[in-house]
């Protein structure tokens, strides 16, 4: 297969086109604007719908409407845009229609900056919006993985009738790496049995997220939750590196995970038996795999580009079986491998006690830096 050198944002856009996306609605925001820009050129070329909306609020409601017709539909934005889209995302979830949302995370909160961050973790794992639902959340660490996950995201969204987030950060959006793009898929034509699009000759269908009778809403909630449980059972994804004989395990996703990979290799070359566990699906979270590692390892190191948002999920998975150290950079700062290597060495030299507060220890360390 021929490889192409593509910027992450462009590669994700083209991957969506290859996956048969029918419609894209969005609003520009750095560091994801090249995704929208690529769509603006390529979607009309392919005879598909592209629309730059007047705001993120409008864009997500256009996604909602298109999704109700059974179209493959997506949008992309960064944290501030996700916040604006929150209401619409919840409506999409409540209506049980599929949609793919790309979040290229930047430094925050607020307007923040345009540097790479993982600060939206807690926001996206609960789908940003209100109410009882979970989206699927996939987190690539390279441009190729971003392409592969975008390709899968549409199928998953339709299979579970849910919102699927692909969360990258500014560095994955902006970097160029060689990728093998999938072949162009046939755009699906058969309308799903739930989709609307004219009821001539059949009973009308109704799509809504409004259920005024609580007993009816509860049945919908239960149906959504059962679908989520199916996804939980079947869609866990992660990558392991050097875990076979690892006494120490570093856990990080996306860019933090690949930075940690460099550090793990450097530590290995110094004789430290350390491995890397990189969650790829953040929802469903690889709880069982982490619990298993917790029963074998001497200690964990969690590395994130936020203040320890995934740390809480790792702690829940580990159930106190293993002491945990935390290292994070925030506000658009990306850790260098040397920083993570120093953390691995510190972990191996003196594992924390299970009773330690990983975030408190890290905050004290940051105050001295």
């Amino acid at each position, binding site marked *: 297969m021929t490889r192409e*050198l593509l910027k992450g944002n462009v590669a994700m856009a083209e991957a969506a086109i290859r996956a048969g996306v029918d419609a894209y609605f969005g609003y520009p925001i750095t560091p994801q604007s090249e995704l929208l820009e690529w769509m603006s050129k390529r979607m009309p070329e392919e005879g598909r719908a592209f629309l730059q909306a007047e705001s993120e609020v409008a864009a997500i409601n256009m996604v909602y409407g298109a999704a109700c017709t059974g179209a493959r539909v997506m949008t992309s934005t960064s944290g501030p845009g996700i916040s604006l889209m929150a209401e619409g995302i919840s409506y999409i979830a409540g209506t049980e229609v599929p949609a793919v949302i790309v979040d290229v995370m930047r430094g925050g909160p607020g307007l923040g900056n*345009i*540097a790479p961050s993982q600060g939206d973790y807690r926001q996206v794992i609960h789908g940003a919006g209100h109410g009882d639902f979970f989206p699927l959340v996939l987190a690539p660490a390279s441009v190729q993985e971003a392409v592969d996950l975008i390709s899968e995201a549409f199928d998953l969204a339709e299979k579970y009738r849910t919102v699927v987030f692909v969360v990258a950060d500014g*560095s994955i959006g902006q*970097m*160029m790496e*060689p990728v093998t793009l999938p072949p162009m898929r046939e755009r699906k034509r058969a309308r799903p049995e739930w989709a609307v699009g004219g009821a001539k000759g059949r009973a009308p269908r109704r799509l809504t997220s409004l259920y005024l009778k609580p007993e009816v809403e509860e049945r919908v909630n239960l149906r959504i939750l059962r679908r989520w449980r199916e996804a939980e059972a079947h869609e866990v994804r992660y990558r392991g590196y050097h875990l076979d004989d690892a006494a120490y395990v570093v856990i990080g996703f996306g860019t933090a995970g690949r*930075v940690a990979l460099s550090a793990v290799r450097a530590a290995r070359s110094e004789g430290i038996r350390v491995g890397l566990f990189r969650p790829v699906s953040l929802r469903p979270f690889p709880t069982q795999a982490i619990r298993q590692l917790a029963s074998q390892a001497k200690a964990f190191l969690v590395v994130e580009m936020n203040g320890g948002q995934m740390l809480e999920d790792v702690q829940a998975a580990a159930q106190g079986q293993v002491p945990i150290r935390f290292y994070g950079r925030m506000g658009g700062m990306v850790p*260098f491998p040397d920083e993570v290597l120093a953390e691995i060495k510190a972990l191996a030299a003196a594992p924390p006690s299970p009773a330690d507060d990983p975030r408190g220890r890290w905050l004290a360390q940051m105050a001295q830096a």
Partner: protein
Amino acid sequence: MQTEILIAGFGGQGVLFAGQVLAYAAMDAGHEVTWFPSYGPEMRGGTANCTVIIADEEIGSPLVAHPQILMALNAPSLDRFEPQVKPGGLIVANASLLQREVQRSDVQTLSLRANHVAESLGDRRMANMVMLGALLARWHGLTLAQVKAALKAHLPARKQHLLEANYQALEAGAAQIEELKKN
């Protein structure tokens, strides 16, 4: 085995493009490669830099604290990045725009007047390719022929008329270094 190359200069000097040319050549040679730009709110006249990482296994961190190679196209870039180069590394410096020599004694240095060479070829904007040619004369991770082939394969159709000028600039840069070797 991993090589990290940091290319830095003014916006408009073709810093990002020079890195992309290296990245294309590395990809076509079958390597893994990551091209990572500074993407702050910079523009023409501001500073620009990119890192190119070339390896034969999955690349970890896209950011590098201590690159093996620095191509410094202007004075602020040398000031900022000279201290970061890995000991034993290489600095390729554009003497046309520097007011001082490279100070590090624990790295190799190639100094050439890239703007001057590019101007003598008729286009100052080719200084980036002159610098790249000089790098390839000393660092053998990729060959001049591979980089030329990458330019030919990936330069967009509307820029193909500049292919020959890019080749000349690469060769002129390499010739500068060959000249240094003789002296």
